[in-house]
């Protein structure tokens, strides 16, 4: 009982010291929350003239809250031997608990409330999104506050702390210029890089904080922190793709009736509408027609990673790095697997009969009940997704529809949006927003803005804004167009082998 009382007693002392600071930051955070709420409500996610005020606030608060967490540590600092608390009967556990309580109540809680208010301003119920809200703040504690606390426990005050943080940022900057990041795709599990980074940072910083409070061996812990800052850089940049396979097996239920992927020999020639891209200079792209069989009823398949291996008649092999090149043909004829072959390999073997295989990580998704919004009508709250709307005239062009969903606390989820212009026959034109958050248990967003927006542009074929847009029939009537929104939720993941029969590469190249 007295332990709890002492913890609360120290907490109250810090609160009495810093309440004006907390109040000022809370007021600014409230303004920011209002700005975020208004931004998404008024402009449907477009950046506006209020951006400058928003960025100033984000910078001030992005610095202010961690600063508050640091100064409360400095209030009873750890390095040195002259601080009053050291020779008082205040155990390190009580002191640490009191500081943690302060960070949770005075730093984290106001931000949680502000985020909840931003969502409420959109007319959404924050409690419906509570797991995402808590996950978002767990990530912010792990990735931002714990490193600041670790630095604060090892430094004597703000000047030394600022020098340490500048040094850490500089080291990370230098490493990022020296070390090339691994670009291996991990089949929808790219989030592992960053989540493992946050996890390692959190565990490491927590260990530093606890050890420092327990022992105050500052001269040992400072080099440990410096070394940790260097090593932790390699977690996301050198994350082994093989670990993604383990995570897939651990986190994703394997499909009960495995999907088969087969080479579709009925379709020939390259994918209609495919054009050479300057991005892939030095390669030749071969589009292989593929077909998904054995699909369980009501589910849709998405490919998240492909590895292709080809073998020439002479036995020469070529294997791709993991990529994600499966496209839906624009003519609605089916799926195509794009293989980027080195020019040299293509020139030598393009006319030979080549066989091979591909490994595809295929995720199956269940689709939510479709919800409909009408272009030009007020946004609609869609349970489980957020606030969705369709705004004609986006990009300052009257001949477009901007379909969007504001989703609280999460990176944009996998949504399928289908636009049917007023008076046009169904089915309409389909576009989807992607997600690399497959089976992520904490798909939270680390951004300042608690609301992320998934956006898709649709434009009639006779519009000048068709680039990267879902192309509607020329002359489509946009006002009153019906936008159907469906959320795809992954239910299983399976590694599927595609057997590539004897093919001539040139037959499928553009």
């Amino acid at each position, binding site marked *: 009982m007295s332990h709890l009382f002492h913890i609360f*007693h120290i907490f109250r002392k810090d609160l009495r010291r810093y309440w004006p600071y907390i109040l000022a930051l809370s007021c600014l955070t409230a303004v920011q929350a209002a700005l975020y709420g208004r931004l998404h409500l008024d402009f449907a996610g477009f950046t506006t003239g209020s951006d400058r005020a928003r960025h100033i606030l984000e910078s001030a608060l992005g610095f202010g809250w961690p600063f508050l967490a640091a100064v409360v540590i400095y209030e009873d600092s750890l390095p040195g*031997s*002259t*601080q*009053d608390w050291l*020779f008082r009967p205040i155990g390190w556990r009580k002191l640490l608990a009191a500081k943690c309580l302060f960070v949770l109540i005075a730093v984290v809680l106001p931000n949680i409330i502000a985020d909840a208010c931003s969502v409420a301003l959109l007319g959404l119920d924050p409690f419906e999104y509570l797991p995402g809200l808590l996950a978002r703040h767990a990530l912010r504690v792990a990735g931002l506050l714990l490193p600041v606390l670790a630095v604060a426990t090892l430094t004597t005050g703000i000047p030394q702390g600022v020098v340490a943080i500048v040094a850490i940022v500089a080291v990370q900057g230098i490493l990022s210029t020296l070390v090339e990041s691994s670009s291996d795709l991990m089949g929808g599990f790219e989030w592992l890089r960053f989540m493992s980074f946050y996890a390692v940072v959190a565990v490491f910083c927590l260990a530093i904080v606890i050890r420092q409070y327990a022992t105050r061996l500052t001269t040992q812990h400072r080099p440990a922190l410096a070394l940790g800052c260097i090593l932790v850089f390699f977690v996301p940049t050198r994350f082994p793709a093989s670990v993604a396979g383990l995570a897939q097996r651990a986190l994703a239920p394997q499909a009960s009736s495995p999907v088969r992927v087969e080479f579709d020999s009925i379709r020939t020639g390259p994918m209609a509408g495919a054009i050479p891209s300057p991005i892939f200079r030095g390669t030749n792209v071969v589009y292989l027609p593929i077909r998904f069989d054995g699909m369980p009823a009501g589910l849709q398949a998405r490919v998240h990673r492909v590895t292709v291996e080809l073998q020439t008649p002479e036995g020469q092999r070529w294997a791709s790095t993991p990529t994600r090149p499966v496209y839906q043909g624009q003519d609605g004829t089916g799926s195509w697997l794009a293989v980027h072959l080195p020019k040299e390999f293509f020139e030598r073997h393009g006319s030979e009969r080549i066989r091979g295989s591909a490994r595809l990580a295929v995720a199956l998704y269940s689709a939510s009940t479709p919800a409909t919004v009408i272009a030009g009508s007020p946004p609609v709250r869609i349970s489980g997704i957020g606030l969705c709307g369709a705004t004609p005239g986006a990009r300052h062009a009257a001949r477009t529809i901007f379909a969007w969903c504001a989703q609280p606390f999460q990176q944009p989820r996998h949504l399928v949006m289908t636009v049917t212009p007023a008076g046009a026959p169904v089915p309409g034109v389909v576009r989807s927003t992607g997600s690399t958050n497959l089976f992520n248990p904490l798909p939270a967003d680390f951004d300042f803005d608690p609301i992320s927006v998934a956006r898709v542009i649709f434009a009639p074929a006779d519009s000048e804004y068709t680039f990267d847009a879902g192309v509607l029939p020329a002359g489509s009537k946009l006002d009153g167009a019906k936008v159907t929104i469906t959320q795809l939720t992954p239910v299983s993941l399976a590694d599927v082998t595609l057997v590539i029969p004897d093919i001539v590469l040139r037959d499928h190249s553009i």
Partner: protein
Amino acid sequence: MTTGPAIRTSDLEKRFGRNRVLRGLDLEIAPGSIYALVGANGAGKTTTLKILLNLIRPTSGQSSILGVESRRITPAQLARVGYVSENMKLPEWMRMDAFLAYLKPFYPTWDDALAAELVQLLDLPVGRRLSELSRGMKMKAALVSALAFHPSVLILDEPFSGLDPMVRDDLITAVLDRAGETTILISSHDLAEIESFASHVGYLDEGRLRFSEEMASLSLRFREVEVALDAPPALPAGWPETWLRPETSSALVRFVESRYDPQRTEADVRRLFPAARRVEANPMPLRAIFVTLARSARKAA
């Protein structure tokens, strides 16, 4: 309750890099005593006190306070130990009364009446922030916070350094009022004040404890001896090691006897100076003893 020494160190060593600050310090302080740890700057006094309170770690050796090894000292033991240092950093943003109110819950034996009495005795302005107090006032505030819970041990690190005589008197009065119920360990250069109330004294020199004994026996042990002769003297061979800082003038020899015994010292003087006309042995103040020891040690080094 501990029955042994209130404070003990055994073969205590402390190095800061290549600098050896403590060299096998052995120290015992009996419960209820007022122990003055004296020594020149850099002798290792503050380091010793900080090791006792587990504020810093020794390189080797052991130290204990109230029967508990310093490294294992817990909040329960710290609730019985008061500490005041010239370098301590108080929470200066607090008002004096808020500071005492903040500390009170941590000390089961906190005595509000005693705290109020001490505040009044030391004439502390309770409504002012600690940052607004003078250095002397801050020391008084620290002393109140260290005495208000009836500590079993009170450790004072250079508490009088740089303070005016009035403040010193106030502090000494406050400390002396607690004598008896509290074992007091005080490190100080202010030998004149210490002499007036210390029951024991230890002399620390370059990390070594040169002596540690009761103040009364120290006063008895040291004498300034003056030998009057008829002719200009020369220091004889066989000069005793316990005779420190010999000085000669036209017909006088002066030295400090550090193992004074009336009969033996007189006999030794007569043996070495058969022509001595007069031999006088005068008591020495602590300051003079300290200076003698410090200079002798420096000369020996």
